[in-house]
């Protein structure tokens, strides 16, 4: 027993002195807490402005965006009486008179407030042909007589007697819906509530998602292939040359993104410098100049050039820390230069590769301005589609939904990356 106690001096000590007191007799823990309290408050106050800034500019807008993408209360609020009456309707046969009556009063209010147009748009999203019958109803509604609204409404247009349209109204009853997310994946809820694909000629989003991933992947790959030797050169050259090279790498970084993209337009267009050069060296004939802009080629070229520094810098910062004696050791131990590189140098640069690739990929996946300018039809990405819905169709909830899907995609990639490489292995500089 003694031996056990002595072999574990820590336990021995802790049983002897249960609670450590300070010289003044206050428990040590309490005293420590008191002493640290001031510092903690100070630290919190220093962080406070940033915290507020983050909440106002980041947490709140993203929350708002998330909410907007699932918020579906507009129709619910416009037809309160109808939905109340519909609560008992099973949706199989045409609804009873009370539903028609409630709908009549709801719609009459909307017509009087002149806000029926929004309802028409929303319901038309749900089922085609709603717009015209609602317009027709609006014209007739003033002449309606009291009582028997069911027959009167059904007389306006024969579609009002079709149960499908009433089901469509009922489907918009919930306050929240995932319809925008489904739309973003070229899916929809059909009349019976099953999730199905949209008709083939309307499946554009999936193509865009895949193209975005493809472009981001290849841009990352091109950046990596080009940046690795540059970063290596930067890390190994003597200071006076490496500084110059560093400026060459960073110079485009200091130029406006728009200017750089525009200069690529000058270079890549059919009568542009690159094409002129190809003709001059006889690679292509003058009347057969390849199109390098307004397609994927243009997007690849311009994005790779623009995102290159984001790959060079993390790689450089990692390579700078690798001692040249390691390569020498590898060689003196009998490794050929290639083996020494592949077994020693390359594994040590993985944190930089990880950081660079993650950075470039995430930037590329949400890239907007370059594909918008040089992408043309086959080179636009999902972010262009988001912008389109923000600016042109004003379907903000759909744009929000796609933005959030993009964010989830990025987080998923980050998660996978963490599993594969480990985020604590990243080294940004």
């Amino acid at each position, binding site marked *: 027993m003694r031996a056990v106690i002595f072999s574990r001096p820590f336990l021995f000590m802790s049983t002897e002195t249960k609670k450590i007191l300070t010289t003044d007799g206050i428990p040590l823990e309490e005293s420590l807490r008191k002493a640290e309290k001031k510092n903690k408050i100070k630290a919190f106050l220093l962080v406070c402005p940033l915290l507020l800034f983050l909440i106002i500019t980041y947490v709140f807008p993203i929350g708002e965006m998330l909410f907007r993408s699932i918020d579906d209360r507009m129709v619910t609020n416009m037809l309160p009486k109808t939905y109340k009456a519909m609560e008992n309707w099973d949706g199989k046969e045409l609804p009873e008179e009370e539903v028609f009556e409630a709908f009549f009063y709801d719609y009459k209010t909307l017509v009087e407030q002149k806000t029926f147009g929004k309802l028409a748009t929303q319901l038309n999203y749900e089922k085609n042909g709603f717009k015209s019958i609602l317009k027709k109803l609006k014209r007739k509604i003033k002449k309606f007589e009291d009582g028997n609204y069911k027959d009167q409404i059904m007389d306006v247009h024969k579609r009002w007697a079709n149960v499908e349209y009433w089901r469509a109204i009922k489907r918009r009853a919930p306050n929240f819906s995932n319809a925008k997310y489904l739309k973003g994946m070229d899916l929809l809820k059909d009349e019976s509530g099953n999730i199905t694909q949209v008709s083939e000629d309307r499946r554009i989003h999936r193509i865009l998602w895949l193209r975005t991933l493809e472009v981001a992947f290849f841009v990352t790959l091109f950046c990596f292939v080009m940046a690795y030797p540059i970063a290596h050169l930067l890390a190994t050259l003597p200071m006076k040359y490496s500084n110059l090279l560093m400026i060459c790498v960073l110079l485009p970084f200091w130029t406006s993104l728009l200017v750089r993209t525009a200069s690529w337009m000058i270079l890549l267009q059919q009568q542009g410098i690159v094409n002129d050069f190809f003709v001059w060296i006889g690679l292509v004939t003058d009347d057969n100049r390849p199109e390098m802009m307004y397609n994927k080629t243009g997007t690849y070229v311009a994005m790779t050039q623009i995102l290159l520094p984001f790959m060079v810098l993390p790689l450089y910062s990692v390579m700078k820390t690798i001692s040249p004696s390691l390569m*020498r050791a590898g060689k003196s131990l009998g490794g050929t*230069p290639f083996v020494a590189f592949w077994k020693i140098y390359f594994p040590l640069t993985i944190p930089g590769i990880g950081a660079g690739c993650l950075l470039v990929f995430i930037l590329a996946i949400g890239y907007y301005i370059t594909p918008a300018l040089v992408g043309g039809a086959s080179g636009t990405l999902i972010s262009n589609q988001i912008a389109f819905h923000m600016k042109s169709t004003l379907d903000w909830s759909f744009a929000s939904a796609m933005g959030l899907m993009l964010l989830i995609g990025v987080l998923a990639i980050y998660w996978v990356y963490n599993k594969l490489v480990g985020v604590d292995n990243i080294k940004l500089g």
Partner: protein
Amino acid sequence: MSKNKEFVKFDKVDKSYDGKVLVVKDLNLDIPEGEFITMLGPSGSGKTTCLMMLAGFETPTNGEIYLDGNPISNIPPHKRGIGMVFQNYALFPHMTVYENLAFPLRVRKINKDEADKKISKAMSMVSLSGFENRMPGQLSGGQQQRVAVARALVFDPAVVLMDEPLGALDKNLRESMQYEIKHIHESIGVTVVYVTHDQGEALTMSNRIAVFNDGKVQQLSSPDQLYEKPVNSFVAEFIGENNTFAGEVTEISKDKCKVRVKEGDILANPISVKSKGEKTTVSIRPERALINPKDKMDNNHKGKIEEVIYHGDHTRVRLSLLGNSEFILKVPNSSENLDIKLGNIISIGWNSHDARALDPK
């Protein structure tokens, strides 16, 4: 099999980095098989450059290096089969100790069983058995150093180069590692070329020492010869402590000469002086000069004690003697109480044989 006397041979090797300054000048050096040779010199003396040329990371500007009779200037480093221990160990940080040691064996396509045998042998040689699965970052400096030594030896190279391998260790560890490396060398008989600027290290470990200065080998001899019989004033200054007198030869015979210094005359052993009137530096080791000598010594002078410094096992006494106020004496603390007090005048003597008249500085 007789040992090759010219196992490593530097033949008229010159090296220049910029075409203007020679870092190594006309180096001729033969290293017999199994020898522990140290290149010793101040920084910038060209010793590391010589090592790098032997390892293959630098090419000689002129001349040739032979390994076992074969010229190696055109052989890339990975084909030379020379083990090397680097200044900062250069262990591969992403590999375990085992993988570090396995690297030279794996590139030589040695099968796993044999490799395992060699690795465990090398690990026990540096007494690190059981550390195979550690990462280098989890080891202390001394342990990393041992791993580096083991890695340089594991593939049985003919020559092992060590570039100031103990420079980053603290004093005690450095001393114990010196003995350890020396014992490893003695037990396996590999040829070692060791570079250091620490003379104590060089004296402890080496069979022979090549003292470098200004791109040239100043003296190549065994540690005791180097200490007792330096051939020029640089070596005398660089190795151990040294009292010097600058002066001019006034009389010279076969094994004695008289040198006039600032305030008096010294009898000395003419090493690099040939004739009367030459300028010279006379060098005397502190322990060769005695206080109140009992034996008859042919140099006997009076000096005044300027400073007494207690050093534990001995006391250092600074005197002003014959116009030199930096004359150092080492007095063992066991010796009977001599009259060592600040300001006392004492009598100092030494044999002319121990006072070496070398080239002027």
